């Protein structure tokens, strides 16, 4: 891998130059407690210290609502609606979200590649950013705390700048076209990088691995431990909306007022909603709240063959944003009887 360094003095120049490669999206502070990603005008408002945003970056690739076709009902004709997509740069994605994006790639770009997703994926440049975990993070347990591929550039914090890993031809191009911003990595930088990684590992609240979680989960699905948690759940779908790998969508035809034309749109759906498993005739494959509640745990802990990890990337968003204070990680710890607490 190619490594370069950028100093703190040049970081805002770098961010400014990123705009040459497309619309720049980055995290900004939107209130006392919350951050969100938005299009950046002034690069100085970018919040480097952010841990999680309201919406994961998947929103740039799987739109919350998206028009797929325009339908002429009378003629029975369909016209695909491929909106014009301009190049864009997402700055500051953390390792977990980049792995999440690769999981979406595995689903959307399999043997039936989804053109709407593909076009956005091709247009997007990913610039990763290192992070330090808070009490909700457990990406070390899911082995998603470090990424090898899936980004164009990845910035690792150093005391006086950033160590940059170059992860793609686009990444090389950006470095090559802006050589005045970058310098060689020296021994001090490598020591600092190592120290940062060590410090980061120390900060995780738990240690161990979730590799056998799917088996333990399967064996304890009937357990009473779930009852109370199911009772707490509102079924609001916040957990799936904020999950970097949740990708269920529903499709509807919305007719115009004269009934002659319609739009086929798809929009985010959630397995926490009652309609998710409902088929014609009234049978519901996930008819109870318990079915729906456990479905998310099952789905997130299932094995994703493409990466050799689970579908859960350990970001902690579902817990952080849950209005009913349901703690996803604690629930899994409970069934696993996991006690390797270091700092908690």
């Amino acid at each position, binding site marked *: 891998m190619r490594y370069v360094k950028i100093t703190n003095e040049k970081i805002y120049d770098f961010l400014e130059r990123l705009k040459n490669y497309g619309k720049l999206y980055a995290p900004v502070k939107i209130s006392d407690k919350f951050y969100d990603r938005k299009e950046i005008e002034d690069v100085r408002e970018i919040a480097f210290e952010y841990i999680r945003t309201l919406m994961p970056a998947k929103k740039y690739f799987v739109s919350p609502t998206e028009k*797929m*076709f325009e*339908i*002429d*009902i009378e003629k*029975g*004709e*369909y016209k*695909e609606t491929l909106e014009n997509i301009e190049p864009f740069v997402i700055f500051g994605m953390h390792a977990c979200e980049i792995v999440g994006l690769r999981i979406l790639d595995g*689903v*959307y770009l*399999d043997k*039936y*590649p*989804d*053109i709407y997703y*593909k076009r956005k994926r091709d247009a997007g440049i990913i610039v990763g950013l290192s992070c330090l975990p808070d009490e909700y993070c457990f990406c070390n347990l899911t082995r998603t705390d470090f990424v090898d591929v899936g980004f164009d550039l990845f910035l690792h914090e150093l005391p006086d700048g950033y160590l940059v890993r170059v992860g793609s031809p686009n990444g090389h191009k950006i470095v090559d076209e802006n050589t005045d911003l970058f310098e060689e990595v020296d021994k001090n930088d490598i020591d600092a990088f190592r120290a940062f990684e060590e410090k980061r590992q120390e900060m995780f609240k738990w240690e161990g691995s979730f590799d056998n*979680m*799917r*088996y333990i*989960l*399967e064996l304890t*699905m009937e357990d009473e431990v779930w009852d109370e948690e199911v009772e707490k759940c509102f079924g609001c779908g916040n957990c799936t909306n904020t999950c970097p790998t949740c*990708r*269920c*969508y*529903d*499709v*509807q*035809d919305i*007719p115009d007022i004269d*009934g002659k034309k*319609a739009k*086929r749109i*798809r929009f985010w*759906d959630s*397995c926490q909603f009652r309609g*998710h*498993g*409902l*088929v*014609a*005739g009234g049978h519901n*494959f996930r008819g109870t709240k318990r079915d729906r509640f456990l*479905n998310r*745990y*099952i*789905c997130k*802990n*299932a*094995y994703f063959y493409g990466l050799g990890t689970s579908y859960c990337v350990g970001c902690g968003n579902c817990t952080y944003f849950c209005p009913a204070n349901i703690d996803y990680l604690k629930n899994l710890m409970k069934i696993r009887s996991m006690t390797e607490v270091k700092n908690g």
Partner: protein
Amino acid sequence: MDNIYSLYKCRVLRVYDLTDDVKLFLFRFENPDIAESWTFIPGQFVQLDIPGLGEVPISICSSPMRKGFFELCIKKIGRVTDKIHELKPGDFVGVRGPYGNGFPITEFEDNDLLLIAAGIGMAPLRSVFMYALDNRWKFGNITVINSAKFGKTLLFKKELEAMRDMAEAENIRIIQTVTRDPDWPGRVGRAQEHIKYANTKPEDAYVCVCGPPQIYNDVFQTLIKNSYDPRRIYVTLERRMKCGVGKCGHCIAGSSTFLKYICVDGPVFGYYDIISTPGLI
């Protein structure tokens, strides 16, 4: 890049009432190139679209041997299927597919074939049956057990009855049975009660089962009691599907060690997959 959600235009050629609320539709592709190249495996399904209303996943119930044409057997049960039932010969619909794994029919070759259907479950199994008839020399003995609650709700009742003579000459046994119809002159009882009358040799037979989820356990137990090989039992499942291509997530089923998209990993699953995975049926 092609849009996987694009639809092929198909013309309705024939509409036939199978029961009060089930119709059989014959379709033909409008585009000659598609008609020429389109093919499927029995057990696969298509997404059938009514413009402005949406798509529904429907199993193909005809044999893949007839190029450019296919049949769908559709029960009037919801918003879209209500509209489908209004279709007349000459009308157009959108179709995409075929999707799903289908039955492992090449593996079935040189063996006996036992097809067990309950209710609307006859639809996908008719495709296997028709395929086997079109390739009669590739299969051993064949038995079809077609069951329903009432005589008037037996799917393909007349078609199967009309085959009786040919069936005898071809070592095919057709068993039609009903469970709740006192006026029915033929066999009565659930599908599994007739497994013992099949002409298939248990050690040499592949079994396909399709019906409402409640029937599976009893059918499995009877099959195994009658020495059928559990490794050769296949079922086909249904779910809510929006995409058919493993994206939308509605058909995800199974448990954390065996999480499957019914639309791409299924809808056909083997017996051991079914019994070791909570939530599949």
